[in-house]
């Protein structure tokens, strides 16, 4: 673990407000982007709750992953919890996944279906951006998650692998394939629009 990160963790453990600010400032943009793609309607709440969990759980943090990765994992779990809770309460209309996934793995298709439903967003977007979001939404969920983490959140594959609990090679493949699919969809849409 980098010594700067270790120092930051120690300061966080000590309750140093400046350290809290530093951490939130560092992660605000990528983390919010990530959360917004999953649970846009409660992105702000989950963003805040993520940092509360960080303080609550920091003593248990094991530095075999980076702090950033660990925090993204917390955020991801919170997003999944929210989706699951909503599903249980029937608040979200879901496409059933093509196949049930065992264990802790969540049917991300459901999660990611919500990715483009950001309130207020549509009005501010250009036509092209809307097309991109639409194309993004139709991607395979796991590929889309990997793509978001890579392109939006700028995380290295090793960290994406830890967050998504998938092999690095798989993550890389998902990102590349997602990009290929996105290109095909955007190309097709563009072709249809122009043709």
């Amino acid at each position, binding site marked *: 673990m980098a010594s700067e990160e270790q120092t930051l963790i120690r300061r966080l453990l000590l*309750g140093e407000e400046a350290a809290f600010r530093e951490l939130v400032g560092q992660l*605000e*943009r990528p983390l919010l982007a990530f959360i917004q793609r999953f649970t846009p309607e409660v992105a702000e709440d989950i963003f805040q709750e993520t940092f509360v969990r960080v303080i609550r759980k920091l003593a248990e943090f094991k530095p075999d992953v980076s702090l950033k990765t660990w925090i993204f994992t917390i955020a991801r779990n919170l997003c999944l919890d929210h989706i699951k809770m909503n599903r249980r309460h029937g608040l979200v209309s879901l496409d059933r996944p093509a196949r049930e996934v065992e264990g802790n793995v969540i049917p991300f298709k459901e999660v990611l279906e919500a990715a483009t439903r950001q309130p207020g967003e549509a009005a501010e977007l250009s036509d*092209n951006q809307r097309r991109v979001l639409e194309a993004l939404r139709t991607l395979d969920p796991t590929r889309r998650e990997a793509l978001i983490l890579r392109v939006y959140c700028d995380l290295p594959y090793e960290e994406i692998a830890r967050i998504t609990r998938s092999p690095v090679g798989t993550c*890389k493949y998902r990102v590349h394939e997602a990009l*290929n699919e996105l290109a095909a969809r955007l190309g097709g849409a563009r072709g249809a629009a122009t043709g």
Partner: protein
Amino acid sequence: MDCHRAREELGGLVLGELDVEQRRAVEAHLSGCPECRARRDQVAGALASLRSLPPAETSEERRRRAVAAMMEEHRRRVEAALRYRSASPLRVVAVALAALVLAAVVTIGWNVARGELEVYVLRVVAVHGTADWASGGEWKPLQKNDVVRSRDRVRTRESAMVQFELVEGSKKRGDLFINQNTSMDLRNGGRVISIDSGELYGVEVSAAVRIVTPSGDHFAPDGPTTFEAGLQQTYVLPQTGAYRQSADRRGMTLQFTDAPIEEVTRVISEKTGEKIDIDSRLRGARICFFGRADDPRLIDSFSRALEAQNLMLYRLGERECRINVLGQAGGEPRLFVRVGAGRGRFATSRGTIMIGAGYYGEVDASGWPRPRELGTAALADWTQPHYYSRLAETRIRVVPTVIRWAPRGGTPTIEVRVPREPMVIPYGGRQLVVEFKGDLEYELKGEGEVTLPITMKIKAVP
């Protein structure tokens, strides 16, 4: 490379993730394949479009709310820890400064190995005299119920003593005493107790060897045997009564007159099965245990003792135990319990003997010991527990004193040789030079005991 393979690599290509060889292969294919080039442009366009999406907007208000929520969570955690501590049914054993240092050194090692971090939160239980603390830069008076955290600094003034309780940062909870004039630096994770900057004064150091042979000729090894000296560990027992402090400063001892100490010693005797010899003129409540600093069993015992939160449950082993009570001028009285000659299997056919070694001295406001404050009475007998912290702190983990014995005309003889060359110990950008004096040659005649003083002189050089 065919088209299918090339298209698989397009994502990696536009993201700049291919290695040189892969990139060349793909580009070589693209140069001759207009369809794939067009596809490459599409993928690059898709990436550009993706990146053109507006990034999440930053918001001062969002950050402020998140930080406030974090502060609140942290406050809750600390308060919960304090409540937990207050509700503890047992008044926890006070842990001597020296013991904390020892535990600190060891535990840091463990924690580093496990990759964990330790942070301390200490609450001030009592302040006798005047002490200051600094959280950040400015010093301010330390008061009861102040909460001191790692990286803060605490400084006690002359004749002052502070009692802390450890409320967070370790699964083990206990009280912590800081002796008068000792400065404790809670930085570095709160584990390392260091002394303020200042000059190191020359200080006389004493060590002693005592050998007890319970029955006859136990010292009969096949040949010469070499031993390394061990160090001491100090624990503090909880005060069991209101002891009145004597004004007697001679020898830095205090008189014990109140009854509760009898109870303390009775319980110790009962729990340990040790014979306890009390000088009832003295009073106090510190238990001093001799042992090796690097002995994992010792550390383990120490941990268990802390977990039990009652040092009376501490297993002293099957050795002679003697209580001697010492105190410090202006400080809380202490009860010292000295146990045998150390952790080693002394007086056995293998004849392991440990030597307690260290130095004794008060420290001034700079944190360094001063010779003028040495107490002769304290040096006369066994070495005193105070030096343990200093030794641990200055990393004199094991004093390389050598003991040899061999039968000579039927009578085992013990020779103690202290190092001829000074030890040079790096410390805080300086060096501590430690010189020893005090060889001994001693004939064992059945059961007996010998005490020998070893003089150690420490100087700091730039």
